[in-house]
Each structure stands twice: as C-alpha cells, then as structure tokens.
C-alpha cells in the first residue's frame, strides 16, 4: 500500500508532467529552466538572438497568468513542476535585457560576464 502511494507521488514529478498543467505549452522551452544565475547567464551568452527572442516571445504573453500562479507559492517547499516553471521566469529575467536593451545576447561593449562571478549560486 505504501509503495503504491510512493509510486503515485513520483509519477507527478516525472517527465510526463514537467510543468504545471496550465503551462505545458511552455514545455518546448524547458532547456531554459535552469536553477542558477551562472547557468542561465551562460545559456543567454551561448544562444543566438533568434533563440533568445523565440523564448522571450513565448514567455511574455503567458506571464500575466504565470505570475499570479507563482504568487501562490513560497520559495520554500515548492513542488518540482512549479519550480521548473519558476526557473523559466528567472531565465526570462536573464534574457530580457538582451531583447529589450541591447539587441544582442551580451551587454553592448560590456565587461566579460564570465569574469563577474556570482557568489550567491
């Protein structure tokens, strides 16, 4: 009986349901669901503007639903699927300046971001 319950709980966290149900349309962008700034920053720098823009344009219109949904959860004890969605929004924050300010992945004429070490990750 206990084993059955465990299996049922585990199934909720498998690849079949990586994002909360209302946001499964964002599943093609799961590669952007990264837990640390270092990883998100590296992905932004390694992506083309076309890839960044595609992700940005997929996320932005959904954010009016995503953010009220995430506002229900505290940073502690977040379910895995909610966490995946949350990390997508952090990547949106990471790429936003590339789209909205620079028109390119890196800061225009900026310092090498790889030298600016995030201690908080």
């Amino acid at each position, binding site marked *: 009986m206990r084993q059955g319950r465990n299996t049922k709980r585990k199934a909720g966290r498998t690849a079949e349901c990586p994002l909360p149900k209302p946001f499964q349309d964002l599943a093609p962008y799961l590669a952007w669901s990264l837990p640390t*700034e270092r990883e998100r920053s590296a992905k932004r720098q390694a992506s083309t503007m076309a890839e960044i823009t595609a992700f940005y344009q997929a996320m*932005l219109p959904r*954010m009016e639903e995503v*953010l*009220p949904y*995430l*506002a*229900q*959860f*505290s*940073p502690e004890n*977040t379910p895995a699927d*909610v966490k995946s969605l*949350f990390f997508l*929004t*952090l990547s*949106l*924050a*990471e790429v*936003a*300046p590339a789209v*909205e*300010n*620079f028109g390119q992945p890196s*800061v*225009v*004429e*900026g*310092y090498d*971001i790889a*030298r*600016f*070490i*995030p*201690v*908080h990750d």
Partner: protein
Amino acid sequence: MAAVAPVSHHNKWHDRYPELGTKPIPIEPYISREYFEKERERIFSKVWLNIGRVEQIPQPGNYFVKDLAVCHTSILVVRGKDGAVRAFHNMCSHRGNQLVWDKQGTCQLFACKFHGWTYALDGSLRHITDEDNFFGLKKETLGMTPVAVDTWEGFIFINVDPNPKETLAEYLGEIGTGITGYPFDEVSVTCFSWQTDLKANWKVIKDSFQEVYHISTLHRRTVGNVFAGRSNAYSHALDFTLFPRHGRISLFGNADRQPTAVESLAQRYGSMLVKHDFSVEKMPKGVNPTRDPSWSVDGNILFPNCLIYVSEGTYLTHILWPLAENRTWWEVRVYYPKATTLAQRFSQEYSKIIFRDLLMEDGSTMERTQSMLGSGAKQEIQLQDEELLVRQHHKVTETYLNA
C-alpha cells in the same frame, strides 16, 4: 523645440564646499605604485573597513574569512559561544600557518592543519600537540592575535591598526548616524553578490560609482532614463552633502519613464511586504535628505572603499579591495527583503539582472580608462560640479598621506 542652455558656470555644489577648489586633479594617484603603497600604509592599515555583515555569522560557531591583501593579512571573523563577534589575524601562533583555509563555516574549535594547535572561538589557545616538548610556553599568551572589530547597523568593520585612533562610531560620524534606522536588517535577508578581479585602480572604480554624470551616456541602453528626464537631462543630483571624510549623493528618479515589458511585470508583481514602513517621513534624516518626491536612491560613500546605496525596499554595496595600483578585487552586493512568493522572487531577479548588466557597462569602461591613464599622455583629469565626490576623495586621501 529644445531650449538652449545658457552658458554659465554652474557650480552650486562647489560653492557649498569652496575649500575643495575647482582645479583639475592629478592622474598620478591612479597609476603610481608608490602612491598605492602609501595608501596601504597610511589609510588601509589605519581605518575602519567594512568586511561583511552579521547575517553571515548568525549562530555561535559560525565564521568567515576575509583575505585582505591590501593589509597584508587574512582576517577570521567568528561568532563566539557568548554571541559576540570577534576578529583575529588568521594565523597560528606556532610557526605562522594560516589557521582557517576555507571561506566560511561552523565549528567549535579551530585546529591548525600543520601541527594541530587548537584554538577556541574566543581566540585562546586550547591545545598544543606534544606540549611537554616545548620550553616553558605560556599558553595564555599565545592566543590568536585579535583585530579591532565593531558593528554598525549589522555591517562588520575591522581596523588592523593595533591601537585604532578612534572608535567605529567616531569614524562613521554623522553619515552613520544619519542613516541609522534604515531597516538594514529586514532588507539584508536576501543577498545577491558578485566579485571580480578588475584591471583598474580602486579609485577608478570608486569614481564610477560616486558620480552620475556618466549615466545618460554610458548607461543609455539600460538606466539612462531612470536617473534623467525632461526636467533633469543630465542626472543632476538632488543633493550632495560632504562630511569630513565621507560623502553622500542623493539622486533623482524619473517618474515619466516607461518601463520595458518585463520590467513592468517585475514592478507589478514585486510588491515587497516588509514590516518596516518605507514612507519618507519614517526614514532617518540621512535618507532622501531633501525629502524630495522625485528621490530614487542615495549613495553613502564611506572613505576609503565602501559605498552603500540605499533605496526604497532595497540597498546595495560596492566594496573595493586594492590589489595593485592597476588591479582591484571588486565586490558588489544587492540586498532585498525576503521574497514571500515566487512572483516576488522573479521581480527581484529582474531587478538584479538589469543592475548586473549595467555594471558590465561600467566594468569595460573602467578597464579601458585605466589602460589610458597609464599611458602618461595626460597628467590631469578635469572635474565638473557634479563630480564633487571625486574631488573630495582626492583631498581626504592627501590629508592621510601627508599626515
């Protein structure tokens, strides 16, 4: 149609502080090794330096290590069993090995990796391996060498002068009392921090963050229109107040600014629920000192190397550690209250990322500036009225070096 600005000498801040003069200042302090060594000896070895915050060591037994190359030492800061914060030179009394090799941690005793001498959290020597084989050692005289330490609003300051000439409170003076009461403890719960080894003199970095004249040019892609607007095209400060060594700049924020799409989301979902009341009447006198409704942020520039920018619901620090006349270990920390929801955490992330990216605009500029300062092609830099703090720093430094 744009109005033509009258040709005039606008020097209202320099009028307030005529003793500073209005002449250019020399480049030599930014490139000279000899000057660097004098700064080390006559400033960094004598004054109170901010090396951390109490949130880093909340529990007894917590410690962190701060390497201070500029003071030729490494400092161990530890929360004792009695709850007190103590600081020591990170050095074993036996043959001088560095006692603690990691950056932070928790323990009950510090054991030297070389021969196993062991120290308590209060710095006293507890155990000498093979003690009987020594010649009349007095353990009680062989504790870790203490370093003067004190805290202000949760900031931990040390002074490596064995006999500091003044207390921390005396050193901070009015700039400290002016912002005491800002809710540092509530806003320090979340800290995002970056560090880098930058190829520029520490004063080149400091200068970048003690004037806003560059914002509408260098940061035109990021925050150019945050600190400038139709009523204030050149980001003129709301106020400059100079103290004998420290200085404060109070900045205008452009209310007419249109946020970007993601920024707008961050603003709407980022309301920060904190216990403290951030309304201007409740803020200490030194925060938004002119009580201007267009206020955005104040820079509290603590001599020599610690800049504390306070704003509504967030603050940040720059701490600059000289490594050489043309190299600096630059530490940036942005603090936010605890995010109670993931939406608020997203909001903090956006704010932190756009800030980080604007620092990248400064970073490349500072290295290029340093590379040309070292050319010898020019001997002076020219300063305008809003670059008052650059001038003040130079004057205060000269006072220390010529003492």
